[in-house]
């Protein structure tokens, strides 16, 4: 699952699905830190965001947190079942708990500050 995955310092992951499309979600560290996730707000399909822009909100019991775009892109699909059952993020953030699928609109250089998953985990220690 970690094969084509890059992570941001703000704890989003970006998984390359080929053909300039990517899956975006929250890392295991992020969901662990948030605790019980109870609410998820995702953008409309078709909306576009630039790298670093807030595109979604996740809420734990205690607080609301913003989620940022790892790269610029257009939303092509959202995870409706995660909106209905946000606890799926705690259970399986990488597979069932993905957030959105995007089509990259920027160039590859936008990924230069993203970290390989192993490096990302290393930096957390």
């Amino acid at each position, binding site marked *: 699952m970690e094969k084509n995955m890059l992570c941001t310092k703000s704890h989003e992951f970006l998984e390359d699905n080929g053909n300039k499309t990517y899956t975006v979600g929250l890392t295991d560290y992020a969901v662990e*830190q948030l*605790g*019980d996730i*109870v*609410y998820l*707000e995702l953008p409309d399909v078709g909306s576009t965001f630039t790298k670093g822009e807030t595109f979604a*909100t996740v809420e734990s*019991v*205690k607080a*609301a947190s913003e989620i940022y775009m790892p790269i610029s892109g257009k939303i092509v699909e959202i995870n409706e079942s995660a909106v209905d059952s946000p606890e799926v993020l705690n259970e399986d953030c990488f597979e069932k708990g993905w957030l959105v699928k995007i089509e990259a609109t920027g160039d590859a250089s936008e990924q230069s500050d993203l970290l390989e998953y192993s490096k990302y985990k290393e930096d957390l220690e």
Partner: protein
Amino acid sequence: MVKETFIHDKHVQSGAKMVDFAGWDMPVQYSSIIDEHKTVRENVGLFDVSHMGELFVSGNDAEAFLNKIVPQDISRLDYEKAVYCQLTNKKGGLTDDLIIYKTGILEYLIICNASRVDEDLNYMVNNTRGFDVEIENCSHKYSLFAVQGPKADTLMRKMGLNTHQDSFTIKPAVIANVKLLISRTGYTGEDGYELLVENKYSEYLWDEILKQGREFGIKPVGLGARDTLRLEAGLHLYGNDLNEDTTPIEAGLSWSVPKDKTADYNGKDVIMNQIQNGVPKKLIGLKMLDKSIARHEYEVYFKGEKVGYITSGAPSPILSANIALAYVKNDKEICTGAVVQVMIREKLHDAEVVKRPFVEKRNKVRL
């Protein structure tokens, strides 16, 4: 310098998530806030609330002094009884909310919010003129544990509590061979006890309660669940729902303000005037009508007009709905059953005005 309770290291070792709360490094959760919350509603939970302040007030004028600084009538407080009060300022606003226990003929124990210990002491010292009274801050000498939930009484009986204890009473007791003060109070809406113990016994007592409570499904509970539990029970949190600019009447605490108290107290004219002539704002309970969550300081609208703001908001694990407290202008149309809107990330979300407590309190002692 961040403060730590006497059993801080135990929390860290058990893997609790720690947060800064009022200058203390405190456990916010051990496993899951929702799970800890349900443990207290269904079985029994153990809280370390040693960050709270313990102030002893004693002397010939202790009663008269306390009567000057709280709206409650302390002359009616019997030995070993407890009463929920507020410290009022001259404008009728609240310096803190607290519980006063009568622990001796001329002695009272005040348990107050951790965030307000210094303000409370200042306020009290500034009001001592003319009173023969001594105030001692004993917060650093004691640990305070709360044992809360429907199985709390059975557990305390098993651990040595040998008499029936009424709600809102405090007594010396021996629990697990440790001499301490035990009161039947709490901040969860459940039946339960609070144990005031000398620091040197706190580590032993904490372990012993968890050990002996195992058969009742006990779990340590952090500040996260403490907050959702008190919110469901409609209990106020100082700093969120109460502050120097809110009166007990506006906060819906009229039940703790006797109308026939003869002694004068700070803010009495403002408070009595509000009882007679009404309040400019009032605290209401809200239940969100969609899945969104209202949080502290979000704005509240009614018929297109901004009428107030949220003071506390969270999911209710028991109701499976999101609930909140809000101050709104005192409009009689904003009543139980009315629908208002909460501004959440630039969108309005419907919420229904509901009665408090959101979840029925079960801390009435059943005989």
